[in-house]
């Protein structure tokens, strides 16, 4: 495959646009540059590559461990087992954070997957945009525990605390590891963060701020007891004698969220740049929307969720019937699942070819990584036309019944041209991201 450098001299190649986004000259006639996915790296509780992850999703294999949570005892959790030393020195791992290591692993794997000639890439034209649900809780809890062993004397508080807990930490660790000198920051978007990272990157590419973006979502949340305690006291922490059955969206006996760690980071580029270097195009970003419920901190609002999905469809120039897979956000909480089903029923009426699935039933809720990982597991459907199921449904909750819900077994479909990826979060943030098979009108 011919691969040319993306670097100096290529900035804005093929388009110039005014502040309202409309072209004033250039080859393209559309209002904004098209954005494509050309690389992907991930770590999930049940896979450290897209191939492994996808195989387990099609085979119905969940992987949830039981971990000892500080102050709380044993709870099911999704634990990743990637080799951090593949891309980091041991000292880097010691000084950095768990989510920094997740971010570096995923970014490096994404780079390898993209085929970019990294030596020739202008690193000042690369951006890193990572979605996070929260950051800093892990290190803060660790240090509070640490000084509690020393009479709460703060002279024992680590001097590494601030660089570990600044909100840009995961993205910043990526830039230091890879020598990226373009912009980096995280996008705090609760559990909609994975989608939000991708959307931010697409927007920055369209604005011409960068030529290459590493974007997605990451999470280390299983290492903070506060998240477990918060969900437990909210009555929303999942439990089951078999940890692999603890996360069961849409099942009548679901009892809450299984907290997981993970990451999925994509390489995004403008289509023109990707074509110029002969890149393998995995998918095209077709449309998106982020909106806000403005109603309740924790209870989702299906009306706003429906509006979010409809706006994403409108921006993609699609109808509901154009979507073959809806990757749901459902987290296995009593009310949240029903609210999302209500929202989807509002939009996807008369859509006999639209399948609906869920990934959290396999890997739990990867928080900031959830949306990015859940999209990743569905992308191979563009090639193999299989739709992975949502598992652990022993008795479907009638209030979650939806035509097209793929239950426990994968289904083969005639074709998959477009995927809608839902990701919602606390404080009423909703995100809907649509990707389509490249080359489909």
């Amino acid at each position, binding site marked *: 495959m011919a691969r040319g450098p993306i670097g100096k001299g290529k900035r804005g190649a093929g388009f110039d646009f005014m502040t309202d986004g409309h072209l004033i000259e250039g080859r393209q006639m559309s209002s904004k540059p098209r954005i494509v996915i050309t690389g992907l790296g991930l770590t999930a509780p049940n896979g450290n590559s897209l191939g492994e992850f996808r195989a387990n999703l099609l085979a119905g294999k969940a992987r949830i461990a039981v971990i000892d949570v500080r102050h709380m005892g044993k709870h099911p959790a999704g634990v990743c087992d990637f080799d951090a030393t593949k891309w980091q*020195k*041991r*000292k880097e791992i*010691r*000084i950095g954070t768990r989510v920094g290591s997740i971010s570096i692993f995923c970014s490096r794997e994404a780079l390898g997957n993209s085929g970019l000639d990294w030596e020739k890439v202008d690193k000042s034209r690369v951006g890193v945009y990572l979605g996070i649900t929260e950051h800093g809780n892990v290190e803060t809890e660790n240090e509070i525990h640490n000084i509690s*062993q*020393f*009479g709460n*004397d703060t*002279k*024992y508080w*680590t*001097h*590494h605390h601030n660089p570990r807990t600044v909100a840009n930490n995961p993205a910043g660790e990526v830039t230091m590891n890879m020598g990226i000198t373009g912009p980096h920051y995280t996008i705090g978007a609760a559990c909609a963060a994975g989608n939000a990272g991708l959307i931010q990157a697409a927007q920055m590419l369209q604005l011409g701020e960068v030529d290459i973006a590493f974007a997605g979502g990451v999470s280390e949340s299983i290492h903070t007891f506060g998240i477990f305690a918060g969900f437990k006291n909210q009555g929303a922490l999942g439990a089951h004698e078999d940890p692999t059955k603890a996360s069961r969206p849409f099942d009548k006996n679901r009892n809450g969220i299984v907290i997981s760690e993970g990451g999925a980071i994509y390489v995004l580029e403008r289509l023109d740049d990707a074509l110029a270097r002969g890149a393998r195009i995995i998918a095209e970003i077709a449309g998106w929307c982020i909106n806000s419920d403005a109603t309740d901190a924790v209870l989702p609002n299906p009306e706003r969720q429906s509006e979010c999905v409809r706006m994403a469809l409108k921006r993609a120039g699609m109808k509901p019937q154009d979507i073959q897979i809806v990757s749901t956000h459902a987290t296995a909480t009593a009310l949240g699942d029903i609210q999302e089903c209500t929202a989807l029923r509002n939009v996807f009426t008369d859509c006999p070819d639209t399948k609906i699935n869920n990934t959290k039933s396999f890997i739990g809720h990867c928080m900031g990584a959830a949306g990015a990982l859940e999209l990743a597991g569905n992308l191979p459907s563009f090639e193999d036309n299989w739709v992975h199921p949502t598992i652990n449904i022993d008795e479907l909750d009638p209030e979650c019944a939806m035509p097209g819900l793929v239950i426990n077994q994968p289904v083969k479909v005639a074709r998959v041209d477009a995927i809608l990826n839902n990701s919602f979060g606390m404080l009423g943030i909703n995100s809907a991201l649509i990707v389509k098979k490249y080359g489909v009108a």
Partner: protein
Amino acid sequence: MGLPDGAWAFVTNPENMTKDDIKQVVLDIIADIAPDEDLTTVKPEVRLRDQLSLDSMDFLDIVMELRKKHGIEVPEADYVQLASLDSCANYLLPKFEAKGK
């Protein structure tokens, strides 16, 4: 202020520490904070920063570990005393001896 149980457990007789013991204490700390470094060839008379990849945050780690594991305080004005293994031994020996009294 009390230290946690076991914090000094392996320093059973700090008053009997030799300079070689103290050099080993410092090397053990460096092994933890700079795990990629080969410490088998460290020259005791040469500045640690001249032969190992250590930065100012690493030296703060050495100070912190001396505090946490051995109850030894190194004031900021004395950080220069930690430049080499030899200077560490010379500087820290009386502090360890004082701990044993």
